[in-house]
């Protein structure tokens, strides 16, 4: 099994969720993160003092999937999260040794 981790733009989360559902994924976990990268952040101005906020709000999407599904899922994320502008984010994949569903104790693909 693989863990796919995607950093995406917050406004894209609905699209990504739809694409993942379409790709047969039935679960995922999302968290709010702040990203630093090429996109570069923005400047805020308070009483004439400029603050350079280099971190940009992003969402992290984590999905555990079956090995065969992995590339379909990655492609689905990449396509649905793309706007073509800097800061669209990254996707990475790591190997999961085991997955367990807490409720039932089922393991592996069963647990998804």
């Amino acid at each position, binding site marked *: 099994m693989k863990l796919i981790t995607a950093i995406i733009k917050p406004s894209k989360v609905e699209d990504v969720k739809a694409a993942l559902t379409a790709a047969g994924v039935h679960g995922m976990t999302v968290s709010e993160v702040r990203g630093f990268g090429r996109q570069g952040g923005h400047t805020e101005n308070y009483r*004439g003092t400029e*603050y350079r906020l280099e971190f940009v709000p992003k969402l992290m999407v984590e999905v555990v999937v079956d090995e065969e599904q992995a590339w379909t899922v990655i492609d689905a994320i990449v396509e649905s999260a793309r706007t073509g502008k800097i800061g669209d984010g990254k996707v990475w994949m790591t190997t999961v040794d085991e997955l367990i569903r807490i409720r039932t104790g089922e393991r592996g693909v069963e647990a998804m």
Partner: protein
Amino acid sequence: MDAGSLAWVLISAALVLFMTPGLAFFYGGMDQGRNVLNMLMMNFYCVLVVPVVWVLVGYSLAQGGSGNFIGNFDHLFLNDIPILDDNGGKLATVAFLGMFAAITPALISGAVADRMKFSAWALFVPLWLLLVFVPIFKWVYGGWLGDRGSLDFAGGTAIHVNAGIAALAAVMVLGRRKGWPSEGHPPHSMPLVMIGTGILWFGWFGFNAGSALAANGQAAQAFMNTFLAAAAAGLVWIVVERFRDGHATNLGAASGIVAGLVAITPAAGFVSGVAPLVIGGIAGLICCYAVKLKHRAGYDDALDVVGVHFVGGLVGSLLIGFFANPKHFDGAFDAGIFYGGGLGLLAEQALANVAAIVWSFSITFGLMVLLKRTIGVRVSDQTEAEGLDIAEHAETAYH
């Protein structure tokens, strides 16, 4: 005091009490999330300790007798303040002034934010009240400065210039926050800042128009001035921002509103017509640049008490020398330059402010040095890095 005037003074006093929480939110929102409770506590502490000190001894020293420099002990413990005589007017006035006494040291909290030991603040407030606020209040209202003819309707000199310059003295002793000015922190909650701003403006109608101590034409004019000066100052501030920095901001609007309110405070019962718009506009313009001074001069006035209260109060107080118009008020005060009064009033305004500045700065400085040498005024570096809320108050703002 007639019933209508008493109703007006009482509600005005309640409004001024409400301003201290308002100030707490205004400052607290600007602060970081890990220091906001310390900021709220510094402010709320003022409305706990000051009323007690005020009725025990403060009021008596600030208003008792006819001395030029300091009051007497005739009214210790509210002694000799009648309840029924004058329909309660005297008592209402003592309460009303007590609200002013409470908010004045609270103003200083914005400067010393993020690094002052709460125990030091706890001692500073009552001592500062008696050593600085009380004498200056007496000089201005019933002492030598007032007698010479200087004007201060609701506390420009006695409150804002006074607290503003004290803030400067305090931070000079206290020193800068770690990392300042290279690192900075944007406001942790702008909605909280705006809640504070709304409450402040609302309360300020009591602060200024209540200072007429009657429901009459002067109160109505002070009310109108409080409305117009805040609007004009806020408007000027965001226009400057828009063209200088590219964006009109909420904090700019809030800061302008407060600057305008500060500036009109000393003048509220002496000027009319378009004067409040001009005074507010000038204050907005000057303060919007004055808040940048600290970066050049190198003093770490965290939330711009100097730039807004000292500068705004001074601007308003001096502009009385131009705009005061006794004819419109049937008033027994001098006219300003624009109404044929010559330079006399302006000179008196300058003198009053210089006197307040010298006294407030030097006594505050001395008091802070004393506290520094004895119990210490600064939290540890670790507390400063990790936030004062947990270390000083064992609380966290948001869970």
